């Protein structure tokens, strides 16, 4: 019954989207305010319909209505309530509905935003409607979350236990806000190309949308990495897994886009690449959605392999991107804009960063898809894993970090080498000292540890010195500048955390029984006991360890292994004690018989800087976003 309501809402919404998609592009510059108001309200009503459909699905999950197939396949009466709700998007159908909801939400917010360029706004709404129509069809035809069972099963199959986790419950909605927010950038490019009008105003209007999408994308990627770290049980935070890459690629391009938009905004230049980036950053969001949703790259994130879905999604993406790129090629000559910049100027570094970020995206793209392409062309099988990306991505990203340090002190007009070296001398000296200390301490050690730690320190100190000098000059900190500095400091922290953890972590795998003492990184752990504990929908084996340092009691750690009978899956729940920014990390391994367990102990130094840095980046993006909103109000 209730399923029908959801389905009808989606049908109506698809109808409205089709009306906008066909009617709106027929409008010409003589469009009346009346018609504009109708198109705007249609967009809002359409979003409300999708929201209703989504809430119906949420309701069906919350009451465990197993007459709906998607609920029965992905939820269970014993699933905790919180995870009943997050199961809505923990599966293919629900997650695509969430995708559509976010798209409609962005479209609606854009429709109600005030804007003088009325016709331009209608053009943007047109593009949004066409994207929306495609996804409506996809959901209604082959990804319908409201399909019903003929005979209602007694109980459901339950949520994949590995997804039963708070960080992963929020991860998809946040990531989708980032992914789908970039659709506005795509539609801006479409509207701008159509009207042959991409200028400073265009960039100014687009920037806040990109900033909010970027912030959420950053936050989503950070959450995903944090989840992998504590849930997967071996303390890694980035695996270059295809699905991680699927989120990294749009993030890299969105980063490039934010920076190159400034060039249009300030100098009315660099339009060609910026427009291309606006198209491609959403393009990569779509490709990312496809990679994850089609199950083409089997990995832990892929839920199911259903070829029809994959093919439909691929077709949809090819249509959207194909249209975008064709329009771009046709109109490209209108985008030619002269640009003047010296290497030692803000525009110089912006151009450099944009190009490097694009290069990095291309590298990740190539590495992720190469095995697939090679196998389909020559039949040859091959893996492209972390070592490839460490040898290509990392060295290519290095110059970017160095240049980012300069960016905080450079001006739009350009500076002399003398002036800039005066301003950055403290940062330069600190970096040299760091390199010497680390080099001495590591006895020359892996050159990468010295180089990347020095680069992080360089970026950190150079950015801070920029903040200090700006503050001295104007006696306050402009919000935009603060946002930039916060995000850049975030990147410095991320690199510090990654480097220190990679090169100085310690790990131990030991077979232990109650009463045993384990020494790691100056800490002593005593295993008290391992006992069986029932959970809401699992059975847990829980170890209790007491932590001591210098004879002082520091706390208790409880690593667990959970057995989920419904899925017959064992999931590890690691136990982590954070000391400053470092983690003592314990995972319970296999039972070895005779009261003995295998256990893994890790010391992850400074690892929390990675997520702290991610939080800084997110905050920086939000600050820049807020500064835009305030400026808009002022105008």
């Amino acid at each position, binding site marked *: 019954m209730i399923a029908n309501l959801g389905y009808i809402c989606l049908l109506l919404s698809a109808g409205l989207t089709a009306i906008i998609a066909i009617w709106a592009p027929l409008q010409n510059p003589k469009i009346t305010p009346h018609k504009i108001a109708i198109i705007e309200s249609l967009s809002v009503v359409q979003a409300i319909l999708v929201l209703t459909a989504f809430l119906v699905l949420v309701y069906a999950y919350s009451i465990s209505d197993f007459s709906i197939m998607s609920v029965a396949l992905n939820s269970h009466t014993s699933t905790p309530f919180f995870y009943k709700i997050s199961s809505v998007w923990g599966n293919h159908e629900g997650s695509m509905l969430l995708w559509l909801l976010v798209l409609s939400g962005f479209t609606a917010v854009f429709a109600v935003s005030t804007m003088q360029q009325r016709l331009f706004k209608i053009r943007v709404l047109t593009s949004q409607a066409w994207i929306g129509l495609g996804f409506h069809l996809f959901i209604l035809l082959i990804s319908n979350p409201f399909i019903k069972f003929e005979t209602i099963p007694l109980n459901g199959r339950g949520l994949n236990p590995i997804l039963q986790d708070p960080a992963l419950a929020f991860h998809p909605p946040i990531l989708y806000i980032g992914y789908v927010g970039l659709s506005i950038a795509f539609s801006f490019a479409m509207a701008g190309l159509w009207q042959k009008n991409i200028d400073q105003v265009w960039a100014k209007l687009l920037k806040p949308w990109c900033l909010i999408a970027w912030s959420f994308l950053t936050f989503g990627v950070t959450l995903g990495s944090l989840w992998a770290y504590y849930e997967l049980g071996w303390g890694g935070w980035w*695996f270059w897994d295809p699905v991680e890459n699927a989120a990294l690629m749009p993030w890299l391009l969105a980063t490039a886009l934010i920076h190159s938009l400034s060039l249009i905004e300030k100098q009315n230049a660099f339009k060609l690449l910026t427009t291309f980036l606006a198209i491609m950053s959403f393009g990569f969001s779509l490709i990312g959605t496809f990679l994850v949703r089609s199950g083409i790259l089997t990995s832990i994130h892929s839920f199911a392999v259903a070829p029809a879905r994959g093919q439909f999604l691929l077709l949809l993406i090819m249509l959207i991107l194909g249209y975008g790129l064709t329009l771009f090629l046709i109109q490209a000559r209108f985008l030619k804009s002269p640009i003047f910049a010296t290497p030692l100027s803000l525009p110089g570094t912006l*151009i450099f960063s944009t190009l490097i970020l694009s290069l990095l995206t291309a590298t990740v793209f190539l*590495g992720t898809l190469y095995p697939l392409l090679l196998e389909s062309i020559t039949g*040859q*099988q091959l893996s492209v894993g972390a070592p490839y990306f460490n040898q290509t991505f990392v060295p290519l990203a290095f110059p970017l970090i160095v240049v980012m340090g300069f960016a905080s002190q450079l001006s739009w007009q350009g500076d002399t080498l003398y002036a800039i070296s005066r301003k950055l001398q403290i940062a330069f000296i600190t970096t040299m000292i760091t390199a010497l200390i680390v080099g001495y301490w590591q006895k020359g050690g892996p050159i990468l540890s010295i180089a990347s730690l020095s680069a992080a320190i360089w970026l950190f100190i150079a950015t801070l010195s920029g903040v200090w000098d700006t503050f001295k000059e104007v006696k306050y900190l402009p919000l935009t500048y603060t946002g930039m500095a916060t995000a850049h400091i975030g990147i410095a922290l991320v690199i510090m955390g990654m480097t220190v953890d990679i090169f100085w972590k310690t790990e131990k795998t030991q077979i232990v029984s109650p009463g045993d003492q384990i020494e790691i990184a100056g800490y002593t752990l005593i295993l008290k006991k391992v006992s069986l504990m029932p959970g809401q929908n699992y059975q847990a084996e829980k170890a209790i360890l007491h932590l001591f340092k210098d004879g002082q009691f520091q706390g208790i750690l409880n690593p667990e292994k959970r057995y989920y009978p419904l899925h017959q899956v064992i999931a590890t729940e690691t136990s982590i004690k954070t000391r400053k920014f470092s983690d003592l990390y314990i995972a319970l391994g296999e039972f070895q018989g005779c009261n003995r367990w295998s256990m893994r102990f890790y010391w992850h130094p400074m690892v929390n800087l990675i997520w702290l840095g991610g939080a800084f980046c997110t905050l920086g993006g939000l600050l820049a976003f807020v500064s835009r909103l305030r400026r808009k109000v002022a105008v």
Partner: protein
Amino acid sequence: MRILNIMMLFIGLSYNANADEKLELHARQLALQIRCPVCQGQSIEDSNAPLAIALKTFILAQLNAGQNEAQIFNELKRQYGTRILLNPPFQPATYLLWLTPFSLAVLIVFFLMRFFK
């Protein structure tokens, strides 16, 4: 197969007792470059699957026996196929993979040099 793995495990353990730290570190570096055949996309160093553990001990044992990197990788490749190497070898089929990023980088440098002239 399984018996072989268990044997490897024991050989590994007996070596483990007097393996010096440097060798273990080397083994760990090699393990990072081997895909865990029964997991999804992780290296054997990042996995706790029984086969991953067995392969780790195999690598350590081979290093102890004086085998070098290439010999160990070749043996693993022979048993499990090329897919087991996370680090794609540099050969005609991967020229495009390895050379594209760096050629693009050269192109960017070239572009910037002309641009800033």
